[in-house]
């Protein structure tokens, strides 16, 4: 009950302080590793932005924008993970990266493992800084595959 009230209160008595300050911005990167925990790929940004989005596509996204809205949810999960680490936020990030990887046409070797990191981007003076703020442990893709299919 207390948890429900905690979740409801910010909506019923909102703060409305959108964009009051522009803080460090998180990006999620992932990496695949083999059974001996040796990286088999470079760190890749999860859901990187396209170079260009046409106005027509922007209009379509007014009514159908699931991938971007999921990206915004993962930004929230990353911010929550940095502010107050919880298994839920880490699990959500793992699960969604794994689903994307499992949807690729080429099957992943069964023994592969996955990890992710959160990189913060911020400005210091005129310089843009990138800093790794969080690195997850490694999770076997087989375990994640099970989670993705049963969740």
């Amino acid at each position, binding site marked *: 009950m207390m948890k429900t009230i905690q979740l409801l209160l910010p909506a019923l008595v909102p703060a*409305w302080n959108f964009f009051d300050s522009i803080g460090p911005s998180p990006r999620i990167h992932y990496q695949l590793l083999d059974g001996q925990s040796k990286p088999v790929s470079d760190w890749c940004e999860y859901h990187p932005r396209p170079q*260009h989005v046409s106005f027509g596509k922007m209009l379509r*996204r007014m009514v159908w924008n699931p991938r*971007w809205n999921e990206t915004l949810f993962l930004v929230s999960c990353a911010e929550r993970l940095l502010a107050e680490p919880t298994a839920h936020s880490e699990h959500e990030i793992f699960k969604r990266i794994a689903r994307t990887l499992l949807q690729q046409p080429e099957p992943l070797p069964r023994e592969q493992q996955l990890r992710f990191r959160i990189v913060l981007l911020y*400005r210091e003076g005129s310089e843009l800084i990138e800093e790794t703020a969080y690195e997850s442990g490694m999770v076997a893709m087989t375990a994640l595959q099970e989670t993705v299919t049963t*969740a």
Partner: protein
Amino acid sequence: MILMLDSAMRATGFMLGFAFVLQSLEHIRSFQNEQLIFLPRLLLALLLMAGFQPLWVTGGLLLLYIIALHRFQGPYNGGADRMGLLILCCLFLAYLLPPGYWREVVFGYLALQLLLSYFVAGLVKVVNPDWRSGTALCDVFRFSAYPVSESLRVYADAPRLMWLMGWLVMILELLFPLSMFAGRGLLVMLGLTAAFHFANACLFGLNRFFWVWIAAYPSILWLQSRIM
């Protein structure tokens, strides 16, 4: 423009239902435990649009909203979800209460929060030197997670344009409460704020904000006709 309370509630219910339909469709092909929440939500949102048994339908949607809050350990899409929940709670309570004073208070609270959503957002920006100088909006385009494409980041190198846009946004937000006393000026202001949400949807992918925020507009139109 005279807007009766019943008509305003009906209009808000229709627009909120539409916003919920769009949101629910986005989850239908997601994980099974999301489908369990969003399939019934889709059905109830359609019923809300149709105006069928609004008390029971808003009650059901509220219950699903609480389940979703637990599922995602908070809102799925920050401010848009919070505004959606606020509108839904006010609509549910307004239908629950008998016609009269308290029903007006509840729906008036929604109008007040809509007004504050612009005014407070303007206030917290204007007291920040980075917003006044245009640096904050440059930073939004330079490194924040919001621009929908890399090509939009070039605006970070247009400080004069960002300064101008930043001040236009702050002036719009801060002047919003005054439009309550400007007769048809409120309609003009709502057109401008809807255009602002539309721009945010195009540039930053915040499409859910657009549909949810305009769903609250009938409440402020009703409040204006009630107090003027």
